[in-house]
Structure formats: C-alpha cells, structure tokens
C-alpha cells in the first residue's frame, strides 16, 4: 500500500429506517501497520461502523476509504480480511470445506487453507462439521477465513466474544502475532484490558459518536505521582515551589503531580523535612477503564 492511511472516514453516518442514529459523523483514520482498537460499550455503533467499512451496509451520509477504495469495492475487498460479529459458515460443511468455499470466492489458492488452519491451530479439528464446533473454534475459524487472503487490513469485530478466559488469552496472542509487520489490524471491542494489551492506537465511540482517537499512551495521560499528606495545603505549597502550580491537581484529598515517578524520593525528603506527614506516595497512572468511563459518560460498576 502506497498510502499510510489504510482506513479513513469523513462524517460517516448511518441512520436506520426506524430513525435510530447508529453512527453519527464519525471521522476516523487507521494507519498502516498499527493495531487500532475500536472501543465502545455495547450498542455504541462499533459493528455498524465496521459493516459500513466492508460494504455490508451503506452509509446514510459521509464517505469512507478502505484499502484505497470505496467500501465494498472488489479491489479493496481483495486486500481486506474481516470477521464481522459472529462467524458465518455452513453448518453442514466441515471447517476445512468452509474455508475452501471462501478461498474459491476470494480467488485464493486452496493450499492456503491448510496454512491458515495451522495459524489458528485448528488443523486437527478441521474435518469436523462447523455445526459441531464450540464458540472458541468458530471464532478461530472466522479468524482463519479472514486471514485467507493474507490481507493488508484485518478487521475483527469483537473476536473474543463468547470465549472463556483461556480462549480470550489465546485469541489476544493470536491477534498480536498476526498484527506484526506491515499488516494493519482494526479491532473492535468493549473489553478495555484487551484493547490496552493489544492496540497501538484507539478510537472511543459512544452513542454513535467518535469521542476520542489517540494512542493508548496519550489516552492514559502523562505519568505522575500521587501524594497524600497532612497538612495538605502546606504540602501543596512546597510541591508548587518544586514543580510549579500547573503541575499539580487536587483530587479526592490527594495531590496529583505531573512528574516522573523517579522524583518520589526527593518529594518525600522535602515534605518530611518540612514536618509534613506523608501517608501515601506512589506512581499514578489512570487506567483505560477510568478514561473510558470519563469519555463515554458511563458509570463505573453500573
């Protein structure tokens, strides 16, 4: 791919006939070689957006370019592998036969079928009928089908859905492995830990709107130090002298300092020397969960 932007949307909008606004003016961009996490609660519009990107549904307004083509264009589709929602295969055919059907449609050599079965570790169970597969095996077969074309862009919609913890860990490892090199992976999920572990950049969607798009590090914010001390006003004054007032925010009876955790020893020494009692001093990092709830307006634990 010549262009470094693999997926680009401008004001992408989908309003269903019932009047439901599923996706609202989404502007997103996914760069070549990155693993992009598309994060949002259930019903936020992730799957609808991905369906538009592969041409399964038409946008009400806005544009999208995927692998250099309009969504659904055969020249674009031949470079895209996708698993949208649940894997769709013929229950009366074996896993291998299902992949052979997909390989025919995709114009891929049949030899590739066994290669991708090995990648997802389904080789020994590929002779069994798809209808008898467990959820995990179905998801693996879906990923195998998405890999058949050796695609430049892999779009995976909630690939760990319905998997047990071990299956989820294996799927995460698999996605990490296949996201190596120049291949771009666009992964939707509502599982924050999953996105944090796998993705380079994330887009957060809520109620159909893309509310944030950045690297995971940017999203989590700069590293810092949390200080809990008494009297807190005096501690604030000393720390302001050390780091500047702009570097300090006060929250829940503690001071959050924008500074490297390596400064902790010096902070402690200064505060103690001033006769201030320090009850807590630790590196501070916001979790993706906190950021997510803040961005989407969802309540934690609800």
């Amino acid at each position, binding site marked *: 791919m010549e262009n470094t932007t693999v997926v680009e949307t401008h004001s992408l909008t989908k309003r269903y006939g019932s009047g439901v606004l599923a996706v609202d003016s989404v502007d997103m961009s996914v760069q070549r070689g990155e693993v992009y996490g598309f994060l949002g609660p259930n019903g936020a519009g992730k799957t609808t957006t991905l369906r538009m990107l592969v041409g399964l549904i038409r946008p009400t307004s806005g544009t999208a370019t995927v692998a250099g083509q309009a969504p659904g264009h*055969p020249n674009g589709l031949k470079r895209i592998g996708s698993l949208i929602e649940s894997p*769709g295969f*013929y229950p009366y055919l074996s896993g291998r036969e299902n992949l052979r059907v*997909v390989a025919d449609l995709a114009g891929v050599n049949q030899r590739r079928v066994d290669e991708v079965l090995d990648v997802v570790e389904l080789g020994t169970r590929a002779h069994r009928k798809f209808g008898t597969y467990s959820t995990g095996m179905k998801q693996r077969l879906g990923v195998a089908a998405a890999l058949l074309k050796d695609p430049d862009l892999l779009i995976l919609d909630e690939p760990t859905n319905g998997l047990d913890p071990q299956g989820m860990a294996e799927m995460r490892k698999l996605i990490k492995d296949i996201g190596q090199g120049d291949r771009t992976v666009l992964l939707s999920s509502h599982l924050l830990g999953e996105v944090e572990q796998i993705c380079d950049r994330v887009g957060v969607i809520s109620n159909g709107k893309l509310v944030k798009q950045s690297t995971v590090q940017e999203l989590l914010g700069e590293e810092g130090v949390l200080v809990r001390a008494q009297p807190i006003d005096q501690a604030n004054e000393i720390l302001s002298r050390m780091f500047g007032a702009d570097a300090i925010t006060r929250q829940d009876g503690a001071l959050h300092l924008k500074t490297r955790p390596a400064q902790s020893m010096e902070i402690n020494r200064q505060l103690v020397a001033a006769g201030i009692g320090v009850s807590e001093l630790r590196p501070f990092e916001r979790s993706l969960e906190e950021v997510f709830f803040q961005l989407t307006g969802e309540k934690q634990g609800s």
Partner: protein
Amino acid sequence: MIATIRAEWRKSRFRPAFLIGTGLLGALTVLAYGVNWYLAHHPGSAERPVSILSLYPDQFVATVLGAGFPLGAAMAIVVGAIYAGSEFGWGTLKTMFTQRPGRLTVWAGRMTVFAAWMLIMTLVLFAIGAASSVVVATFESHVITWPAAIDVAKGIGAIWLIFTVNGAIGMALGVLIKQPAAALGVGLVYLLSVEIIAVRFVDALNNGAYKWIGNLFVNQNASALLQSFTPARNASAISAEQAVIVLAAYGIGLVVIAAGLLRLRDVT
C-alpha cells in the same frame, strides 16, 4: 464468475436440501409408478382407470411430466426458499459479500448452480421414471420401446424450465423475507391455492372477458406446457410457445428482482 460458480458448487453439492429434495422426488416417482401399476390391475370403481399402457417405456415421458408438476414444482419452491433464505440465518451472506466478487457476481453464480441443480433433479426424475417403466414392462412381459429422443429432450427441457421458475419463486421469496421457513410457506400457499383461486376469480369476471389475465399466471402456463405433450387431452388456450415465453419471463424477472434486492439492501 467461474470462481464464484466453483464456490457455489462446492458448498451446494452436499447440501441436504438438494440431496433430500432430489431423493424425495425420485422416491415419489417410484411410488407413483407402483400405485398406478396396482390401480391398473385393480381399477375398482375409479372414474378414470389407469391404463397399464401409460406405464410402459414408450409413455414414460408423459407419466414423468405428471409427477413433475405440481409435486416437483412444489419441491423446487421448497429447495429454492431454503437455498436463498438460510444464508441470512447462518450469516453466510456477509461472509460471501466480503470476499472479492461483487454482489451481483455472487448472485449470478448462485443462480447458475441452482439452475444446474434443477437440471440434476429433472434428470433424476426422468432416469427413475424410465427405470420404473422398464421394471413394469419387464414384469408385464411387454416389449420395451422408447419414445423419440426429441420428445424426451423436450420433456426434460419443459420440466427443467418449470422447476427453475418455481425454484426462482422460492429463491426470490427467500431473499425478500430473509429466512427459509416463511419463504417456503408463502411459496407453497401460492402454488397450491392462491394462484388457483385468483385464476378462477379472474376467469369468472364479466363472462370470461379477462381470461387473458388468468392465462398470464405462472403455473397456468406450466400446466399448458405439460398438456402440450398429450395433444389429445390438450384443452388449454395457451400454446406451448407462449407458455415457454411466459415462464422464461417469470424466471428472468424474479432473478432480476432478487438481484436488485440483494444489491441495494443492507446486510445486517
């Protein structure tokens, strides 16, 4: 296009709906021969006794045509509705539409394979009919003579056309309703009652002034086409040529409408 046909054939050759539909049609043909053979020897008080002559090989085309319609047409509707409708429930339509070929290419490949399956069903029907007629002739010690090859070919063509058009009704309904059960139900109700009632109603209007409208219904033309193989009993106002044209127009029209729906509608 070739790749699409190959994919369609790969997934359809072991498809239970086709295998069971074809097998059932063959079994019913054997049953029809068996029952008619019995009735030929035990006519009882039947108004129209079965002639043993109609069960010999030289008459097998007409007998097979009788088994092909409306029974085979109903089977074709069922198979067509399942073939098209189940893709929505399985989610396989999205898998197909996200590979390389465009939607219309995929649909064209599907129709090609479906038409091929209807031909297989037709050939099985004729082969079993021919074999059954040989069995009857052998047991009756009747000399085996076959109808002219052109008559066999015409019969195969007529049944294939009727199966394909009725299958297209099932497929179009499957695409429209997006699921097989309701599609085959609606298709069968149309074949077995709606069209019959509608034609009777139209024919009765204004002393038959609108009979020509009734003559445009799909299975009126199917009946007329089959009646043309038994000219002595042919009472239809529809010629064989018109029947072929009307049936072909229905087939093409249904395929185009279903293609339009598939192309324009969202796959959710």
